[in-house]
């Protein structure tokens, strides 16, 4: 695809999926973002894909985080007290 057809037609769906994270991270130039959003407004497939990526990230955020083991907490607090004395 030449540059002139890119400007005319914007990104293909295949390109949009690879740019999803750049977009969500706010790492695009304003020109890229305009083209990206133009595609998104016209394409249910890519709009749905982007929502899936957002949902995936949100679901990862809903996972329970690793908890500090109680034993380590005790050991570290003892180390902190010792450090304080020094």
């Amino acid at each position, binding site marked *: 695809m030449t540059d002139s057809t890119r400007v005319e037609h914007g990104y293909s*769906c295949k390109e949009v999926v690879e740019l999803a994270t750049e977009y969500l991270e706010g790492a695009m130039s304003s020109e890229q973002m305009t083209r990206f959003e133009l595609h998104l407004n016209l394409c249910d*497939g890519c709009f749905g894909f982007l929502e899936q990526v957002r949902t995936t990230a949100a679901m990862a955020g809903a996972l329970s985080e690793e908890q500090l083991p109680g034993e380590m907490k005790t050991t570290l607090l003892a180390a902190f007290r010792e450090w304080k004395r020094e």
Partner: protein
Amino acid sequence: MVGSAAGAEVTSDDAALVGRLRSGDEDAFDEVVAGMYPAMIAVARGYVRTRSVAEEVVQEAWLGVLRGLERFEGRSTLRVWVLQIVANIARKRAVGESRSLPFSSFALETDEPAVEPERFRGPDDPYPGGWRSFPSNWQTQPEAQLLARETLDVVDRAIDELPETQRIVITLRDVTGCLPAEVSEALGISEGNQRVLLHRARARVRATLERHFDD
């Protein structure tokens, strides 16, 4: 969580926290040890073989933090500084275990499409690179199903099965809520590479979820 709202720049909260730690405030120490644990264990697990060794690394890192606390100058956030100490210790352990370091052999030249190329129309199609059929709409999934234990287990397992570098980045970013700059500084990779890894990780987890929902 401690530091989760802080940017990669040092905030006054950070300075206050360091001040409390230096003065020997045990509540502050408890809070920071618990709050930073998920990110610390995620970094450690990227380098060493077993959970128990990763836990040793975290514990050793705290001893290093205490030794260095008086000299901490606040050039990075406390969290970045702590995670860098974890990564340093974990690297040494990995070398001891003769493991290759995940971010040193780190190369992004291998092409890894976010979606299988067969899902898109070919070059001779009137719509080259367009979807052959659209991804399904997850908005129609009831929220209860999205957050059901079973579905979250799918996400958890998918993250577990990721290549190390992708697993560390998605865990730090999406599971523990670290900022992009914190992750790239702590791991010593560029923000661009951090983004590529996050993209690939989310894409793999998304594909696993798609198979789960479509079954």
